[in-house]
């Protein structure tokens, strides 16, 4: 009996490890829970066994599919476990050549900076003009981790500028406040107790303020490819400074990369993003991506007065009624919708493209984002009231 129990514990341990490798966060406590659950459940059938483990190991609805797959494969034959991990993890592709580790180019630059001085100067000039680097990769799956030192310096600059007072909304939660309007009886009583109850020194409560969440929708299609890397850096910096930032990438489909962006090191964060996304530098389907967002995520991430940053050039291939419908729904479900369009860098930019014309009436603000200056301006905009001069209606009038 003891021996068979030992085997079960071992199997559960291996199974938990397999789940972890497949991306379900399973702590050591969950393994103990699983053993306890199995011992009280008197599992008879395979189904009961399945749901018992499911109850303990799965904490998110999205993980049910992963768990199901892992369970089937694991409890059919143990030898399949490596195969299972390989099939469920997008990043471990067997036979693929080894990519240089993140940050390798930075190290190279640091070592041979003397040799590359001239080239670097050149790329510096380019940053002023376009905020992009010379190494244009035409691979479908871009390796973001290879940043030039010049770009890093620029990104750091942007991060430094981010230390600004941020946007605030009033919550319904109360906190002690000198200028509040409600009497905090608890503190008042405590304070008056000090004087033996003879003097009543009133203490007040006021509404607590909080930074609203930010939701970023970043276009990674071919026409935006020169900018996506730096925008991701920017979003990483914003995520670092604020707690509630959700990041989505879209080209032809929508991918949530919030967890990847949350990693401390920007190189690692960007590398994690690129492994998660299948449609780098492809076409754009703004309408269907927005539709996917509205349907699956809007109700989950747009609560508590969220600000949406929509970063796209608006060059939708097939602009029809659905685009207008989806952008309108997005606009109605968030507190403020800011459209960041890198094409605005051209002074002669006019809202002529059909996609742009369709989307303009539904956004609260249209801003350029093509260099560090405009990024800094955006941060200032995030920390206060909508600024003048970025009214999308003005843009439409100019065309008319």
């Amino acid at each position, binding site marked *: 009996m003891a021996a068979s129990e030992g085997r079960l514990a071992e199997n559960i341990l291996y199974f938990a490890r397999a789940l972890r490798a497949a991306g379900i966060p399973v702590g050591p406590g969950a393994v103990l829970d699983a053993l306890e659950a199995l011992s009280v459940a008197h599992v008879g059938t395979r189904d009961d066994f399945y749901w018992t483990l499911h109850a303990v190991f799965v904490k998110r609805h999205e993980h049910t599919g992963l768990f199901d797959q892992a369970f089937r494969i694991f409890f059919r034959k143990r030898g399949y476990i490596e195969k299972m991990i390989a099939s469920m993890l997008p990043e471990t592709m067997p036979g693929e050549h080894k990519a240089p580790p993140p940050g390798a180019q930075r190290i190279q630059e640091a070592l041979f900076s003397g040799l590359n001085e001239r080239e670097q100067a050149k790329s510096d000039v380019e940053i002023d003009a376009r905020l992009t680097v010379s190494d244009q990769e035409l691979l479908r799956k871009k390796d973001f981790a290879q940043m030039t030192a010049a770009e890093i310096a620029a990104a750091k600059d942007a991060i430094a500028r981010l230390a600004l007072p941020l946007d605030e909304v009033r919550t319904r939660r109360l906190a002690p406040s000198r200028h509040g309007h409600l009497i905090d009886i608890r503190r008042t009583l405590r304070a008056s*107790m000090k004087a033996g109850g003879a003097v009543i020194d009133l203490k007040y409560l006021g509404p607590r303020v909080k930074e609203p969440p930010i939701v970023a929708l970043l276009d990674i299609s071919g026409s935006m490819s020169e900018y996506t890397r730096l925008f991701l850096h920017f979003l990483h910096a914003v995520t670092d400074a604020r707690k509630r930032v959700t990041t989505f990438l879209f080209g032809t489909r929508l991918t949530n990369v919030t967890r990847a962006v949350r990693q401390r090191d920007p190189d690692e964060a960007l590398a994690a993003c690129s492994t998660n996304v299948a449609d780098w530098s492809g076409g754009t389907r703004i309408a269907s991506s927005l539709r996917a967002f509205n349907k699956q995520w809007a*109700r989950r991430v747009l609560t508590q007065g969220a600000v949406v940053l929509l970063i796209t050039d608006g060059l939708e291939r097939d602009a029809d009624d659905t685009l207008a419908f989806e952008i309108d729904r997005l606009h109605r479900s968030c507190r403020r919708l800011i459209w960041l369009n890198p094409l605005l860098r051209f002074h002669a930019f006019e809202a002529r493209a059909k996609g742009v014309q369709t989307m303009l009436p539904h956004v609260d603000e249209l801003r350029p984002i093509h260099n560090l200056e405009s990024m800094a301006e955006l941060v200032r905009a995030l920390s206060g009231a909508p600024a003048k001069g970025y009214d999308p209606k003005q843009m439409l009038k100019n065309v008319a």
Partner: protein
Amino acid sequence: MTDKTLPSSIDSTLDLLAKADYIADRSLATVLYLALRMGRPMFVEGEAGVGKTEIAKVLATTLGRRLIRLQCYEGLDVSAAVYEWNYGAQMIAIRLAEAEGEGDRARIEHDVFSDRFLIKRPLLQALEPDPAGPPVLLIDEIDRTDEAFEAFLLEVLADFQITVPELGTVKAAHPPIVVVTSNRTREVHDALKRRCLYHWVGYPNAERELKILRAKVPGIAKKLSEQVVAFVQALRKEDLFKSPGVAETLDWASALTELDVVALDPATVSDTLGVLLKYQDDITRLDGTKVKALLDEVRSELRAAE
């Protein structure tokens, strides 16, 4: 009295729920059974109207326990959820002590912050001993409150205890049965979920939905109930912003019986669509021709099944 004890197997859990007309599937019964046996909170997530809150209510009635409900909302704080001091009574007590010439400040403080002046809110009530057995604590729609409130719950859900700074720690002798529900309008933190057994309540399949419908709307005609379920199931396959839940199916069935409908026809469906669909976009999407096509599909399916 035997029927008031905790179920001893997954099958008896299913029976227990069925006794109160709650037709659960086996996966839900498994989780519920584990939660009862292991003394763990149960975290139930799912779309609106699939019967999450009902689980707690059914548990309370079938087990003969008291149901304590904490409805969450934004700004919910300790004084509304856990406990509050009865300030008015405290003031009076201080005045009286003064009038009696009681000068010992520490003594007054000790008297004023005692059990007598404590107003117990749902979470603290749930920890109190109850002659009928530990109560069922329903923490409803936890996603409606903000992240800050989740932190209050960690101590309660992990150790079934609450610390009142002035009094000390209150610990339940017998832990309550805790059911936490969420509509997933935001992600609840992993730290809280880790302490619970998780279950996603999905839409039921046709067979189970039919059983639920017959249990909850007893007067319904056989043919109508089959049509209603088949239509709703077909509707859930459509590309809608919000698919109808079980609650909507039941509402619709009772509405149809009230209207003395014996079989579905396109006009009745179109007129009563507002009971099933709650978004204007979804209702406009389902115009007359679409309803007719769906209904024809449902009818031919049912005919084939006969």
